[in-house]
């Protein structure tokens, strides 16, 4: 068995809601602004205890709406398959294929 990496690709990316030019302009504005300000020492250190998290019955102060630890854990979908063909077969009935496409890559074993 080898491991295969499954990348879900989305066919419905809708650029109409935000044109690439508009997106570029926003990113550029933000980058220019943040580059200008980051060196100036105007960074506002957060006050301790901005974010409340439940801790047992009490409330502690550490969590935030971050995607990384909450949504990336699990990372890619990694499946076990005998062969590339087998990996393809295992993805065939994925509901993702209704709207998107699936990319499969064999993983190097470290």
């Amino acid at each position, binding site marked *: 068995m080898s491991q295969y990496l499954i*990348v*879900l*690709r*989305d*066919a*419905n*990316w*809708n650029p109409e*809601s*935000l044109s690439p030019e*508009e*997106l570029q*302009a*926003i990113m550029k*504005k*933000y980058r220019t*602004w*943040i580059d200008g*300000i*980051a060196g*100036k020492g*105007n*960074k*506002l*250190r*957060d006050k301790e*205890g*901005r*974010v*409340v*998290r*439940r*801790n*047992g019955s009490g409330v502690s*102060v*550490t*969590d*935030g*709406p*971050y*995607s*990384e*630890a*909450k*949504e*990336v*854990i*699990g*990372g*890619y*979908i*990694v499946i*076990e398959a005998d062969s590339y063909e087998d990996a393809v077969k295992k993805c065939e009935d994925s*509901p*993702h294929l209704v*709207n*998107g496409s699936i*990319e499969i890559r064999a993983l190097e*074993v*470290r």
Partner: protein
Amino acid sequence: MTEIPDVVDHLFRHAAGQMVSTLTRVFGPEHLSLAEEVVQEALISALQQWGLRGIPENPQGWLFQVARNRALDQLRRDASLRAKEPEIIAALHERADDPHPAFAHELRDDQLRMMLMCCHPAIPRESRVALTLKTVGGFSVDEIARAFLTKKETIAQRIVRAKRLIRDERIPIEMPSRVELPERVDSLLEVIYLMFNEGYSAHAGDDLVRSDLCAEAIRLGREIAMHPATDVPEAHALLALMLMQAARLPARIDAAGELSTLAEQDRALWDQAMIADGMRQLGESAEGERLTAYHVEAAIASCHAIAESFEDTDWDAIVAHYDLLTELKPTPVVALNRAVAAAMAEGPAAAMSAIEEIESHESLQNYLPLPATLGELCLRLGDRRRAAEYFTRALELPATMPEKKFLLRKLEACGR
């Protein structure tokens, strides 16, 4: 007939919050509970009448009118309030007949003043959130308790305490002075952020209430960002952050109730209009001289929101943003999230050693994402035995059903 609960519920929240705000301004903050009672009565009679006769053409106007009549009844009973009669009539009368209130800006002012009062720094933080949700958001104590996994009594107590403080400290319902405003806006944004985070983080509890929390945080965040008195760049940054994170909510749980990771999420379900809105808000936020955590967190959210696929995510940019965020907010949770991003950019081994440095921090001891992340990294490094240990540890912590299913799936993967 079947439409009634939805329509009333919708009006409950927003019209109720609006009416409570206006009545509190007229009655005075010390009579906040009275304002709530009056509105509650109006809503109950709405439910009864609409159930029998159907929904009137202008439900909001109808509610305002009933509330006005109840308020006037109250005034007549209370000598100290009698002098306010003309004000009540002026505040609620014309609105009652107007389907599209010409007083929209006044209503918005009332709502903002109310939020500022509820978020006054003299009130303890957790009471601010509960009070804002109850009075401005129109949430019931029961709903707030479910959303915060707290007992009803605890929430009720927090609200009572906050109201007592408002009375005893004579916290006014008014626009703060120019000097005071920045601090007051900070507190306002913090409450909105907490509200959103509770909805987004979904530790456990009622999913429906939680997405309502996110929606309410966005609604109020938008009020703040759009109001001329409070439209500071960081308000736009917070709104951008919330919009871009919330745009993915429909994809986080799949049809089978399983938790979907970013890689698994069906990006077709992401709300592109919300993402576009969020990006435009991010553009608005890039002004002025203050760089806040909201700015950086919004930038991180934007990296995810505009990535066409998981694979296309710009992890290097995300790690760079996290480096900046670490300066602004040097907490173990930020460090953990940075490590996850670093794992994507530089590989699991680097992330593992970054996490080992913060692992023992007290605030992370019952933090579900920590063992879950460590388990995942071990799995990627091929150490299934240790991975299984971490997932088992994660499963001992309180979690939602989708989280539990997710962890069990992971644990199973360790066995193979």
